[in-house]
């Protein structure tokens, strides 16, 4: 019609995205200008520092697994970001860090993140490229390899942050059998239950994405979390609102079908 370059049936989505994006940006700006927000504590994130401390006391390394997928998954990127924070702690506590990865681009990114963290903490001498090392791209060969590292090096803490599939339980059970503190964070829905049952702490779904804001304490990131909460409230409101409309639509026949609006091709 009038807009040759626009998919008109996706316009609802465009508006939704714009609204959500501006909510996020508003909160980020607000936080940058000094607005303060409360964030409820997440036990799993507090435990990260404890785990690093415990490893130092025991003189054993920390194992960090940033998932088994490549950087084209948002979870992996989030995992690498959390790794950056963990690396800062290991630099401060002078604990050794072991990061086996299963994708080469992740290896590169994780190295950059660790290098930077060690620089910021003023310990570039402690950084060693091979603390982040590649095993293999294959899911189960990688699990076998990490298993081997766990049984032989006996890390005091194991952290699993990223996208996981079936190998999650192999890792978590082996970690459990060597008595390590285990902290997991993932948005892979099917794997959350295993982490919940086999690990000491688990960041469930959205908590994992909020982790970097919690750990970095940067105002703009915390503002983002706050923005996310506002969107969530809006989502809940939409659910309730659409239920009311749907009920009225079906029972009294007011002429507006909300399910049409929510259908995006």
């Amino acid at each position, binding site marked *: 019609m009038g807009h040759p370059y626009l998919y008109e049936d996706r316009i609802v989505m465009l508006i939704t995205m714009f609204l959500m994006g501006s909510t996020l940006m508003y909160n980020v700006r607000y936080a940058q200008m000094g607005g303060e927000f409360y964030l409820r504590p997440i036990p799993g994130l507090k435990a990260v520092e404890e785990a690093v401390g415990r490893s130092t006391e025991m003189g054993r390394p920390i194992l960090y697994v940033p998932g088994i997928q490549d950087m084209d998954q948002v979870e992996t990127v989030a995992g690498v970001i959390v790794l950056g924070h963990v690396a800062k702690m290991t630099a401060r506590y002078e604990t050794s860090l072991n990061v086996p990865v299963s994708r080469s681009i992740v290896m*590169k990114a994780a190295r950059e993140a660790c290098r930077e963290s060690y620089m910021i903490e003023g310990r570039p001498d402690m950084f060693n490229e091979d603390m982040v090392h590649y095993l293999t791209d294959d899911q189960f060969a990688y699990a076998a390899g990490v298993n081997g590292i766990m049984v032989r090096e006996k890390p005091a803490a194991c952290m699993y942050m990223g996208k996981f599939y079936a190998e999650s339980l192999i890792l978590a059970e082996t970690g459990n059998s060597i008595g390590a503190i285990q902290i997991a964070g993932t948005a892979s829905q099917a794997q959350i239950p295993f982490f919940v049952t086999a690990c000491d702490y688990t960041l469930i779904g959205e908590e994992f994405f909020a982790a970097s804001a919690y750990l970095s304490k940067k105002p703009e990131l915390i503002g983002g979390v706050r923005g996310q909460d506002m969107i969530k409230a809006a989502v809940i409101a939409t659910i309730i609102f659409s239920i009311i409309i749907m009920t009225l639509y079906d029972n009294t026949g007011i002429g507006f079908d909300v399910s049409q609006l*929510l259908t995006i091709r």
Partner: protein
Amino acid sequence: MEFSTILGAWVAVFLTFGIFSYLYKDNPFYKFAEHLFVGVSAGYWTAIFFWTQIQPNLFGRLFPAKVYGPDSGTPFIYNLLSFISNSVFPEGGIDKGHDQHFIYLIPLALGMMMLLSLIPSINWFARWGIAYTVGMAAGLRAYGYLNSNVIGQVKGTAVNIFNSSLPFFSLSEPSIFNNMIIIVGTICGLLYFYFSKEHTGILGKASKVGIYFLMISFGASFGFAVMGRISLLIGRFNDLIKFSSTEYHHATFWVLTAVIAILGYASYQEKENKSQIADTGQDSVQEEE
């Protein structure tokens, strides 16, 4: 049966038991299988990626056979590459059905930069590739997840709760009660993920209910996981049963006997040694709490 198949069956059975032996404890059979697995799979994926991505999709678009007909010939650079490796660059261009796309020089450049980042002084070369990956992932996933995980699910939850054609209570059919369960569960579950407010009062109660729903969901997942994992074990045992037949010279039986005998002997030896030397306490690691 061919020799290579029978040899293959023996190798497969040996490696299978090598990995199963981990259930007993970390031992040389497992270490052997583990290291072999890591090495072989790294090589396997390198070859697979090369032959399913770089050769057909990159080189196949830069030097497609469509362009280089029998009369026009191939350019010098291709002839040179073909001289170096005739298997990757066969005569007359690469026939994978692609047209010529010179824009694919960009991923080639990013890929080369990735490789060059091995040189320490320019290791930041890798950042461009990482940046591309993150940008692409962010753009594509933001829409996909928002559409299916958020809007699609909101739509799924938005139903007519007082539908007069539905019974109030029915276990497995849609009913008003079941609709209520979904609505309450979804909303309370969402409230559990509310970060910027203390979970006290009504929010605290709702998020508690939310946790209950999450737990039921986790339990169900766990139940399904048990089911799936047992199915796979059944599949694995079916293979082992197949390989124990006469056709394969009873591979399963012999390998199993050998592995058990060796591990048993080793652990017997270890016990002997331990009773002579004082216990170092090294072995308690495998035990449960």
